[in-house]
């Protein structure tokens, strides 16, 4: 056994769950940025960076939610539909003259109900999370459609100007509010996950649910909390979408659940649970956003975008698996 000095402390931080993956991917992100800047110098202009950050924002927020759920060893496929639901419910109410902030409040309640339902189905009813949230995904999309009677809403109007500025268009201290919201949410949820008891329990049930239960962790309420966080994140993105477009779109958030999985997984969150850092999710979401933005500036057609993204998802997880198996072998042999 070796005594650990200060230089080893750095080493230790690097060896924290998933930190290796975060670093690998950060390097990948930097390379991507350099490549895109060379291909088209506009990519690295100040204007585009502000813009890019605002594009990363929604992906990162849903990525945070999905990361919470993935770390507990489950999955949330309903995210995209909850985004749509949130967008439609808030917009419909605003077009009907409801005060924007009241509408926001009610929207949160509705979305949290979906989160609660997900948690109950998975944790109490023991449905496989994939199926439970596939079901709620379809139902939530149906609600998004029915809420304004199968049509997108009209404009949410002038009265909602404050709402739109708050969630997307306004700037505070030189930075778009959408970015501020993302930063605040990240700080809050990162704090919850890394510094509180609930956060610890989320990791524990994802790592070994039986051990966690034997240690007195309330698996049921912890699972529900994770799904609630996911619903809050999806709801926020839905409101952001509503603020962005100034109307309710029934299709809003389509396939966002998959983007969220991709952002989380690229950032080193394990789909098997127990492992992952929200720092990684930032990098994962950034890679996703940079790819979309950079490939567009590089003039790449959609097809190339898809192929590149697919390969990056597979390779980043493959890397992770290879690294972990390597470690595991070493451990077993020692």
């Amino acid at each position, binding site marked *: *056994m070796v005594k*650990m000095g200060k230089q080893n402390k750095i080493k*230790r931080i690097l*060896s*924290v*769950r998933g930190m290796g993956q975060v670093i690998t991917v950060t390097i990948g992100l930097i390379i991507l940025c350099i490549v895109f800047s060379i291909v088209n110098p506009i990519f690295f202009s100040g204007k585009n960076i502000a813009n890019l950050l605002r594009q990363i924002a929604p992906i990162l927020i849903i990525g945070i939610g999905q990361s919470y759920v993935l770390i507990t060893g489950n999955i949330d496929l309903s995210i995209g539909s909850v985004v749509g639901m949130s967008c439609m419910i808030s917009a419909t109410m605003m077009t009907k003259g409801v005060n924007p902030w009241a509408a926001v409040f009610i929207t949160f309640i509705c979305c949290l109900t979906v989160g609660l339902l997900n948690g109950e189905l998975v944790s109490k009813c023991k449905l496989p999370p994939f199926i439970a949230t596939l079901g709620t995904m379809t139902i939530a999309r149906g609600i998004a459609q029915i809420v304004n009677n199968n049509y997108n809403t009209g404009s949410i109007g002038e009265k909602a100007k404050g709402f739109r500025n708050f969630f997307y268009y306004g700037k505070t201290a030189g930075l778009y509010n959408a970015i501020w919201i993302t930063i605040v949410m990240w700080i809050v949820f990162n704090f919850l996950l890394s*510094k*509180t*008891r609930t*956060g*610890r*329990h989320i*990791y*524990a049930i*994802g*790592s*070994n649910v*039986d*051990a*966690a*239960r*034997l*240690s*007195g*962790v309330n698996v049921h309420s912890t699972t529900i909390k994770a799904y609630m966080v996911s619903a809050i994140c999806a709801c926020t993105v839905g409101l952001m979408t509503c603020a962005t477009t100034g109307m309710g779109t029934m299709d809003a958030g389509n396939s966002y659940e998959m983007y969220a999985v991709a952002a989380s997984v690229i950032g080193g969150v394990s789909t098997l649970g*127990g*492992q992952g850092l929200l720092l990684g999710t930032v990098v994962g979401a950034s890679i996703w956003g940079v790819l979309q933005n950079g490939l567009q500036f590089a003039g790449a057609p959609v097809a190339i975008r898809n192929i590149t993204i697919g390969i990056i998802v597979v390779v980043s997880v493959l890397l992770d698996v290879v690294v972990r198996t390597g*470690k595991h072998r070493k*451990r*077993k*042999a*020692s």
Partner: protein
Amino acid sequence: MDEYIVELEHVSKSFPGVLALDDVSFDLKSGEVLALLGENGAGKSTLMKILSGVYTKDSGIIKIFGQVVDSMNAKKAGELGIAIIHQELNLCSHLTVAQNIFLGREITGHGMLSSSKMNSEAKKILKSLNIDMEPEMIVGDLSVSKQQMVEIAKALSSNSKILIMDEPTSALTAKEIEDLFLIIKKLKKEGCGIVYISHRLEELEHIVDRVTILRDGQYINSMNFKETSLPEIISFMVGRNIKEKFPRITCKKGKKILEVRKLNAGPMVRDINLDLYEGEIVGIAGLMGAGRTETTRAIFGIDAKESGDIILDGKTVKIEKPMDAISQGIVLVPEDRKKDGLCTKLSIRDNIALPNLDIICQKAGIINSKIEREMANKAVSDLKIKLPDIEVNAGSLSGGNQQKVVVGKWLRRKSRVVIFDEPTRGIDVAAKVEIYNLMNDLKEQGIGVLFVSSELPEVIGISDRIIVMCDGKITGELKTEEATQDIILQYATRFDKKIDKDVQYK
């Protein structure tokens, strides 16, 4: 000092098909170390799990510090000051040592986890255990023995008054065991009551005050350790009429079937040499964790071999995966039936057919369901498996009957060698005899039988020759006539300097 801190009265508990505890009473005083002894499956762990609220009792009374506790659960047990180190590791491998130690009762300040405080507390505990381990290391990166130490540290950290240790030393090194004993002595002085479960009887004299013995789920007796002797304890533990229970037949020893030469596979299989002849059953005895299972797995091709040869009927055979072994005629009845033996969601018919599909299928790989059904029915009637129908899920059978299915699926094909790893674990006495008879049948047919078991009486009762393993090595080979439990235990505890010579059991 004489005050009972735990009293269990008339506790019973049954699992599907097994009466694990039958009207058991048990007590523990403060400031004593009580050894809870019994064979595998005697019900020790079950009793302790009931005490610590993991299982709920079917009937009986639990009194803690004189108070009757009605509905015990894990959380309540913790609050009452009961801590348990489980037989199996129960850790979150992704979390750090300190995080595991404080899981479920994290230290917080202003709603925030105080990591530094937990780390320093953990460090203190680890230090008192004399473990040189950083509290921020990830548990999954630790060796099994270190993980076991974390489990111990976790239990100690709760400052419990009642501490249960279910085979804490099975994975520890000699030094770690010594440190643990020091801790136990210290806790004893502080007035803790400790229940200590172990199969390593040589450890007892260092720490134990009293022993309580269970057998087949029943309370046998309790006595002060000083007033008894190990042979007496063993006889209470084993305590049944061995002759009737172990049907023995004699065959002529024929030609050599299997030869294992210099087999190495990981730390638990070191330089294994063994021979197996027609018409004999070779028993492999040893303590828990002696490396017997790993040896059989290496022979069967589940785990990779580092070196060594397998020679079957004089020819060296290449076995890289179980498929190779099966096609060569070597089959394994694995130890862990839930994990390795059964597809619990499939029917009995499917399970029995699975390894025999080459026989059942016609040329194009199409299943002949008539042959399949006949095979399954034959296995069921031969082994007297109790089931409503061969189409029911394997998971719906009782443990013993599941075990019979696991055994039965390997007996429908012409094999040269059948390896049984703990085939009688968790099954009732009558079923055991049926399995012995099966092994005898194979022996008569000239098939080589390797029989791994932790129950010494059955090894002695059934085998023609006994190989004893300890710590991944073969430490002795005995003819049945010269074997006694004492001698086997001596060989089975020949650790490489794991414990000083003078403290070893003689």
